[in-house]
């Protein structure tokens, strides 16, 4: 087990700067998710950690040792690739055993470890099959088995679930997290799926344009997003954003955008006149006859557990999550209320969160 430290790490491909002076600490045994949209540099950072990409500037430290010039085979890292990267001509058994064989383990030892990994991952009956004879989920499990037997210091996952269907993905999320809890290995997991990040991570590192936007627990990112980008990235359905200004009225603070007037915690009164973006999560609103959010229903989507009401509020779209039996047809006027503490305010120009 080991901690991983990134010290002002940079990466460029020719003149294109992919990562810029990125610093991050990952504690021993932590499950960290690098989250971000395509092209934000998360996979590159992971591949640099593995040694599959060179480091343009800065240092990566694993277990107290700078690994910049260390060959991947000497980093003691196990990685699960997006497309599994199984050895196509080897059987499942050989795929899992390969690293043990390389390490010069005895036949009995290899057999025992392969059998144990296969048992944990439900692969026992597939041990003599080739990867081409397996389904996507089974291949995924072989890739995990291969990583498991390594007894590596750090486990890296590069979008391992993105090729699986939704049901299997949900199942594998649990399996990977359980595996981590059992092995207690330091894990770096790359994904663009915020649900994976929220459900699995001890700590989420949200990246944008080659840099880190926010590091924190899933609750930190959901409850206190550092920027509007984070607020919009985390949470499904996406947070509702409205531009407006803070108006102070006799010690009380209001967010005002035309007809929309929302009471804010009193401490915002100090920001009188500031141009802001107001973010309200769809699940933080409740139907209320006297609520300040008044909208015309455009469409009501049933998701099973609840109903997502798409409203026109003040000329822009506003989504509210309502109980599943909520009545309403397009054209109806609905009113919602929101607790002042659940309103997120960001500076209009910079997008940075304004603390209450």
């Amino acid at each position, binding site marked *: 087990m080991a901690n991983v430290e990134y010290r002002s790490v940079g990466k460029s491909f020719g003149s294109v700067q992919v990562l810029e002076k990125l610093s991050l600490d990952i504690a021993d045994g932590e499950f960290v998710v690098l989250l971000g949209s395509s092209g934000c540099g998360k996979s590159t950072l992971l591949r640099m950690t*593995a*040694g*599959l990409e060179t480091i343009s500037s800065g240092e990566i430290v694993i277990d107290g040792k700078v690994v910049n010039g260390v*060959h*991947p*085979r*000497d*980093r003691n*890292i*196990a*990685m699960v*690739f997006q*497309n*599994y*990267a*199984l*050895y*196509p*001509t*080897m059987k499942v058994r050989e795929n899992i055993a*390969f*690293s043990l064989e*390389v*390490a010069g383990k005895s036949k009995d030892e290899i057999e025992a470890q392969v059998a144990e990994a296969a048992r944990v991952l439900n692969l026992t009956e597939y041990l003599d099959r080739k990867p081409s004879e397996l389904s996507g989920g089974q291949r995924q499990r072989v890739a995990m088995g*291969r990583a498991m037997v*390594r007894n590596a210091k750090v486990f890296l996952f590069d979008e391992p679930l993105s090729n699986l269907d939704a049901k299997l993905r949900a199942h594998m999320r649990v399996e990977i997290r359980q595996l981590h809890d059992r092995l207690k290995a330091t894990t770096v997991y790359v994904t663009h799926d915020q649900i994976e990040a929220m459900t699995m991570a001890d700590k989420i590192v949200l990246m944008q344009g080659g840099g880190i936007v926010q590091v924190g627990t899933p609750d930190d990112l959901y409850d206190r997003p550092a920027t509007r980008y984070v607020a919009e990235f985390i949470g499904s359905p996406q947070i509702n954003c409205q531009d407006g200004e803070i108006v102070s009225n006799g010690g009380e603070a209001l967010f005002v955008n035309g007809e929309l007037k929302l009471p804010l915690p009193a401490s915002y009164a100090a920001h009188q006149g500031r141009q802001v973006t107001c973010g309200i999560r769809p699940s933080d609103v409740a139907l209320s006859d006297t609520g300040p959010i008044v909208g015309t229903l455009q469409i009501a989507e049933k998701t099973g557990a609840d109903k997502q009401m798409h409203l026109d509020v003040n000329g822009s779209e506003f989504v509210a999550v309502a109980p599943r039996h909520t009545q309403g047809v397009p054209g109806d006027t609905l009113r919602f209320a929101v607790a002042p503490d659940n309103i997120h305010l960001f500076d209009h120009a910079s997008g940075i969160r304004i603390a209450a």
Partner: protein
Amino acid sequence: MLNVCNQVRWRSERVFDLRVGVLSWDRPWIWLAPLIAMLVAFTIVPLIYNVWLSFHEYHAFSRQLRWVGGANWAQLVADERMWEALGITLAYFAVTLTVEVILGMAIALLLDADEIGFGFLRTLLTLTLVVPPAIAGMMFLLIEDPEFGVLTYVLEVLGLLDKTTPILATGSTALWGVMLVDIWQWTPFMVLIFLAGLRSLPPEPYEAAMLDGASGFMVFRRITLPLLQKVIAVAVLIRGIDIFRMFDYVFVMTSGGPGTSTYTLSLYSWQQTFSFIKWGYGATLSLFTLLIILVVANLFIWVAKVRW
């Protein structure tokens, strides 16, 4: 968009036109006829004629082909020179094919990189393939010349040979001298095929192997080689058939000599047919060569599990 739609419609109308015409796709025989005609004229008929010929022999006095039954085949089995030629052919086949595969793979592995200049090197490799084999033979006749050949000189300087043993005129070295041309000319062919295979391999298993701690040799043995198995098999098959019926080099360089030390099966067939005008026996010899190639090739396909 409209333009695209029009094009699609225009094309489908054209296809529809073909359907109702004579050359429609529900009349496959019309499409196949030219190919079948060529196959029959240039392959099937000559083959049948060859079989027919192997049961006949040409008589110079009567200028006629006469039925001899199985006499040609009986002669073939009893012909010591034929067995000697087969032995020489097999030795030539085994050595050149082995060297070409190993050397070809080694060079392909070296050239499988995206460094500057490697593309040019890969192009350079094709040069030997455009030289006609007979010309290559002539070139090596000069290179291996006992008086002014470069190779003779180099081997002499290295103390491996003295001028009293000319490579192509000494029984123990002549076949090696001929093999050298084959290896020079055809190793690049192997390199090209192996390179095409190598460059189409997925990079991910290699990255996984790197993290698994595998050494370069282990990666080659456990990943590259199994992945290239079919490419290697096809290359061996094509080249193997070619080597087995090699004629140009021995014809140009040694005419089968000194003595019979470079007399291959194809040269022997040629000699019987065209020098001795034994058309029946010549046909029997070439049929025998074809049978050996068929058996060996199919055995190889079966053993190497080549799937077409």
